[in-house]
C-alpha cells in the first residue's frame, strides 16, 4: 500500500437538516486514480467537494469529522483555506473557461498567488498547457479568447489552469460527461498521464470510464460508503450485494 494522500475519518456532511454523508472513513492513496461511483444523489459529489472545503460555499452546510491531507486536518480552525485549495485543485463537470484570453486563464492562478514576472508566467503557462495536452492546439493563439475553444479544449484548459498553481491532488467532478466521445477519450488519456505526478479523485457516472481510468473505486449509496476496493476487484468480485446490483445495472 502506498501512503495515504487523503485520510478521511467519520465525515458527516449536512445540508440544513438533510444529512448528505454518513460517517465516511476512507484512505485515498497518492499517485493513484480513485473513482467515486454511485447513483445520482448518493453523496459522491458532496464527498469530493468536502476534500477542498467547497461545500461551505453553499449556505447552510455543516461538516463533522476529519479530512487529513498532508498530515493536517483541513477542517481544523487554523487551516488556511486559500492554501488548501491551491494544494487541492478541482475540475467541474461543465467546462468553464473564464471570459478572458487562453493565456490569462492559465496565468490567473499564479497571478492571484503573487507571481507577476512575465518570464515566469510564460513558463508556467507553457508547462501547464503542455501537461494538459493543449499546447500544440493553442500555442499560436494564446491571446485569443478562451471562449472560442471547443468544450473538450475548454475542459483541458481548465485542467491546465488547475495545474498552474501546482497542486498535489486533483479532484474531478464528472469531467467528461459534457464532452463528445473523442474529447472524452482524450481526457481519459490525460488522466492516465497525470497520475504519475498527481493524486486524482474522480467522480463519474460512467462505469466503463471508472473501470478504464481508476486504480481504486469507491461505491457510494444514499450517503454511505458501501464498498472501497482496488478497481479490478470491485468490478469483478464485489463484496457487497448492492455494489454488484449497481455495477451490473440492476439499479441506478
Amino acid at each position, binding site marked *: 500500500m502506498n501512503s495515504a494522500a487523503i485520510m478521511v475519518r467519520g465525515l458527516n456532511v449536512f445540508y440544513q437538516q438533510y444529512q448528505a454523508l454518513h460517517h465516511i472513513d476512507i484512505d485515498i492513496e497518492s499517485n493513484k486514480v480513485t473513482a467515486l461511483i454511485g447513483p445520482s444523489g448518493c453523496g459522491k459529489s458532496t464527498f469530493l467537494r468536502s476534500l*477542498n472545503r*467547497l461545500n461551505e*460555499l453553499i*449556505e447552510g452546510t455543516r461538516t463533522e469529522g476529519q479530512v487529513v491531507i498532508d498530515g493536517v486536518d483541513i477542517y481544523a480552525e487554523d487551516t488556511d483555506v*486559500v*492554501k*488548501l*485549495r*491551491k494544494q487541492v*485543485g*478541482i475540475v*467541474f463537470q*461543465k467546462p*468553464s473557461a*473564464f*471570459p*478572458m*484570453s487562453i493565456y490569462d486563464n492559465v496565468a*490567473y*492562478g499564479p497571478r*492571484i*498567488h503573487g507571481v507577476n514576472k512575465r518570464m515566469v508566467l510564460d513558463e508556467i503557462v507553457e508547462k501547464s498547457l503542455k501537461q494538459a495536452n493543449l499546447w500544440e492546439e493553442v500555442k499560436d493563439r494564446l491571446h*485569443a*479568447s478562451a*471562449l*472560442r475553444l471547443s468544450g473538450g479544449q475548454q475542459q483541458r484548459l*481548465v485542467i491546465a*489552469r*488547475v495545474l498552474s*498553481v501546482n497542486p498535489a491532488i486533483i479532484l474531478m467532478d464528472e469531467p467528461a460527461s459534457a464532452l463528445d466521445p473523442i474529447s472524452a477519450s482524450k481526457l481519459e488519456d490525460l488522466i492516465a498521464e497525470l497520475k504519475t505526478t498527481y493524486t486524482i479523485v474522480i467522480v463519474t457516472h460512467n462505469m466503463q470510464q471508472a473501470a478504464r481510468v481508476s486504480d481504486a473505486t469507491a461505491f457510494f449509496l444514499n450517503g454511505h460508503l458501501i464498498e472501497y476496493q482496488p478497481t479490478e476487484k470491485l468490478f469483478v468480485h464485489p463484496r457487497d450485494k448492492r455494489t454488484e446490483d449497481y455495477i451490473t445495472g440492476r439499479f441506478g
Partner: protein
Amino acid sequence: MKPFGNRREQLIYYTICSGAVFVALTLVAIVAFVAIKGVGCISWEFLTEIPSRMGKEGGISSAIVGTLYLTLVALVLSVPLGVGAAVYLTEYQPRVSRFTRLVELSAEALAGIPSIVFGLFGFVFFVIFLGWGWSVLSGGLTLALMILPTIMRTSQEAITAVPVEFRENSLALGATKWQTTSKIVIPSALPGIITGVILSIGRSVGETAAVLLTAGSALGMPVLPTDPARSMAVHLYFLASEGISMERAYGTALLLIIMILIINYLANLSLRRFSYRLKG
C-alpha cells in the same frame, strides 16, 4: 414572410406592424423637425462662445461644459456607490436576506420618485442647508441621487447573471473572495453595468427641473465645482419658455440630441471592444 392563415391573422399582422412603423416614424419626425429648425444656427461661434444677452446672442459653450460637468460629477459619485452596493448585495449577502430586500425596495421606490422631488431635496439640503449654493456640486450630487437606483439595479442584475461556475472555479484555485469578485465577477458583468450607466447618462443630460433648482441658471463658464452652472436642457427651457430665441432653442436641442448620440456611440464602441477581448 407573411404568415397569413386567414383574415383575422391578416388584421392582427397589420395592427402590430403599424405600431412598429409608428415608433420609427415618430423618432424620425422629431429628429428631422429639430434638425431642420436648428441646423441653421449651429456654427463655430455657437459652439465656442458664451451666451450673451440671456442667450439671444453668442453661443452655448458654457451650457455644453455645464452639462458635461454636472454629468461627470453625478457619475463619479453614483457609479462607485451603485456598483459597490450591487456587489455587496449580490456577493456578500446571503441570497435570501431581509437587508437585501429592504435595499432593493428602497431603490425601486427611489427610482419611481419624480425628478423635481429630487430637485427640491437637493435645493433644501445641498443648496441651503449645506450652504453650497447653486453650484455644479449641488446639481451633480442631486443627479447622482437620482440615477443611483438605476445604476445599482442594473449592476445587480448583471452581476447575478454571471455564472456561479466562474466564482467556484476561481475560489477553487485559491483566490480570495475579493480577488474573485474584482478579477472575475465584475469584469464579466461589465457590459451590463455599462448599459445601466449609459441609461443614467441619458437621464442626467436631459434633466431640467432638478438641475435648475440645484445648479442654478448662470450663463458664465463653470470652472470650480462650487460655481453655478446652466445645463443645455435648462438653457433650452429658458430660450423657449421666455421667448428669447426659438431658433437658438432648436439649435440647442439639436446639439443635445447629437451629444447623447455621441455618448451612446462611444459607450457602445468601448463595450464592443471590451466584449471582443472577452469573447472573441
